[in-house]
């Protein structure tokens, strides 16, 4: 509903101003607000309403479309945004397959694009097409490294893996198994389950029989609670790790007491208030949390919306630089915006500090992740 309203409002606004003030900045957005990725897309969509409507004195129009977590729709959306709405920059999409498919269209029309999906393949390597593409979420590799280091430090020798039977689980398996291998962690079981499964008894029995010191569950959102609940029911006493895909409060609600003691890596925004005062991300993360909770209610914030906030932050910082090179709506402005995005240094977002370069279109470093433990039904930063 809200999307439609925004679109209608944006469309009306466009019709009203076109010709008269062509210098408005048009931002096209494609989010997965429905379909399997809806739990990520909805907070992102909400976050977009918090972005500024004027930057450096220029009015900004947001045209928000829903791609229903579907790749074809995402491509259709970005084509529409570029050809009909003449957008200067595209934000989206929520998930990796959609973002990968959108790269071609963005590069073809020479429009900068900021993705909110996690895979490093979206911006790596920065080639002729990916020159136009940036992204805000941490790479899975950064998160997997954090988990493996934590495991090694805690004296874990053998580990079991259970992940989604889709791109998310496979991506994690690739990253995690490679890093674990390098750090001499032995993986003794590797299982898959589906997001919509009603039972994982078989997989859990197999994991349990392998007697690992720790188990990593590579799932996103509330579906990641199912293996953990089954493991606890079977009496698994080892350490359990989750990925940053579970970092929202719905996960805590569904998993309840069975998730006590779980470790996971996450963006600092999840524990913004617990960050030490000298942490450079603290202030920017708190700003996002307070704005989001003021608009959508206490406890409603999730890390996924933070990626949309960061995409907006990058844009807000790049636009003033690009405005010097040309008027919005022109190819010169779009090229200048791309250059400005690539030149961003020390930009503080909700998830970390961005330092872009011609070879790095993510720009996040170690400051973009913290280890978190679930204690007493809340997220607690591990010092």
């Amino acid at each position: 509903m809200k999307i439609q309203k925004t679109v209608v409002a944006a469309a009306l606004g466009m019709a009203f101003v076109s010709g008269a003030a062509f210098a408005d900045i048009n931002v096209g957005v494609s989010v997965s607000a429905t379909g399997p990725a809806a739990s990520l897309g909805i907070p992102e969509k909400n976050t977009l309403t918090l972005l500024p409507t004027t930057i450096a004195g220029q009015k900004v129009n947001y045209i928000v479309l829903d791609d229903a977590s579907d790749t074809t729709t995402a491509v259709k959306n970005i084509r529409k945004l570029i050809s009909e709405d003449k957008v200067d920059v595209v934000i989206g999409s929520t998930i990796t397959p959609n973002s990968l498919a959108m790269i071609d269209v963005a590069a073809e029309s020479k429009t900068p694009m900021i993705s909110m999906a996690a895979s490093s393949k979206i911006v790596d390597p920065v080639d002729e097409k990916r020159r136009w593409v940036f992204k805000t979420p941490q790479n899975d590799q950064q998160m997997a490294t954090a988990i493996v280091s934590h495991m090694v430090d805690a004296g874990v020798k053998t580990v079991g893996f259970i992940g989604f039977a889709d791109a998310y689980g496979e991506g994690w398996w690739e990253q995690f198994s490679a890093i674990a291998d390098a750090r001499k962690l032995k993986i003794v079981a590797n299982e898959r389950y589906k997001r919509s499964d009603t039972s994982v008894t078989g997989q859990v029995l197999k994991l349990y029989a392998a007697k690992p010191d720790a188990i990593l569950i590579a799932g996103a959102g509330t579906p990641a609670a199912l293996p953990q609940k089954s493991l606890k029911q079977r009496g698994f006493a080892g350490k359990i790790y989750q990925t940053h895909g579970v970092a929202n409060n719905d996960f805590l609600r569904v998993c309840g007491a069975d998730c006590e003691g779980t470790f996971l890596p996450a963006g600092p925004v999840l524990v913004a208030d617990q960050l030490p005062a000298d942490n450079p991300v603290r202030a920017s993360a708190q700003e996002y949390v307070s704005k989001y909770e003021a608009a959508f209610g206490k406890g409603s914030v999730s890390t996924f919306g933070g990626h949309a906030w960061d995409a907006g932050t990058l844009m807000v910082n790049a636009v003033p630089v690009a405005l010097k090179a040309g008027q919005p709506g022109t190819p010169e402005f779009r090229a200048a915006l791309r250059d400005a995005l690539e030149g961003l240094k020390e930009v503080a977002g909700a998830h970390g500090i961005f330092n872009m370069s011609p070879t790095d279109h993510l720009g996040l470093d170690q400051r973009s992740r913290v280890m978190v433990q679930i204690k007493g039904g809340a997220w607690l930063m591990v010092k």
Partner: protein
Amino acid sequence: MDLEIAMLLGQDGVTNGAIYALLALALVLVFAVTRVIFIPQGEFVAYGALTLAMIEAGRLPGTVWLLLAAGVLVVALDGLDALRRGGVGRLMKVVGWNIGYPLALVALMRFVPTDSWPLAAKVALTMAVVVPLGPMIYRVAYQPVAEASVLILLIVSVAVHVAMVGLALLFFGAEGSRTSAFSDASFTVGPMMVSGQSLWVIGTSLALIVALALFFGRTIYGKALRATAINRAGARLMGISPALAGRLTFMLAALIGALSGVLIAPIATIYYDTGFLIGLKGFVAAIIGGLASYPIAALGAILVGVLEAFSSFWASAYKEVIVFTLIIPVLVWRSLTSHHVEEDE
């Protein structure tokens, strides 16, 4: 694999199989009476489970608003006809059931703290909200095209399914929910731990199957449904209204679906779109029964559940592939053993 693991998997498979069996029975029933391949059957599972979860959380479930909206549509379709045939009294009855009843439910949930009720009362309330949706959906979506071909009815089913999933996302959000268990008890039988909830699931399924058998064997309405299933035209000549048979069937289907949802919600996290996959597995079982035989469909459901449990142990990545591939040998076998009857259009 040792005996203990096999028994645990077997228990898991039979518990899930019991749910699939209920859904398979509902699918067979709906197809036999109305020729509708009821794809949205699974949605009632999600609606039942998530409505209960929202009542437990002390929130007003969106399904009551859907009930009200569907009721208004039914009145719009039936109101004039009722007025013409039975006067104001009949019209008031239609309005009362389709608009007054949902409004009463809204008022009840708004002003009475239903979240402090005992679990059984909450389950009853969930049923009161979700079950009437069945006949209303039949009235709005299927009754106008009741005489159309199976293919058209199937297309309507797909439309109803897509609409119900979309509405579920709107009502319940993208994240899943669980409800509190009927029983936290667990028993040790030999080397195996049996959870109270699985006993509840299996017990309720059995009780429901017996109740359905009694309904079809002993009551006049049940016999009317059976007559319609055997010969639609013949039943009509005997004075059995096809519209009534349709509504009654859909009410039973909604009842079975919502009850399955309530049963499974404590052991699995249910999402707005979970129902489809559960329904599909019930459908595999119904196909095994040829969309005609209740006992074979029920046995097929247990087979699907057990196969699913064991394949999740041996080859978890291919679980769904294995379960749905089962349908191919079944179809080959059925097409070899049964003679094909052209559908009379």
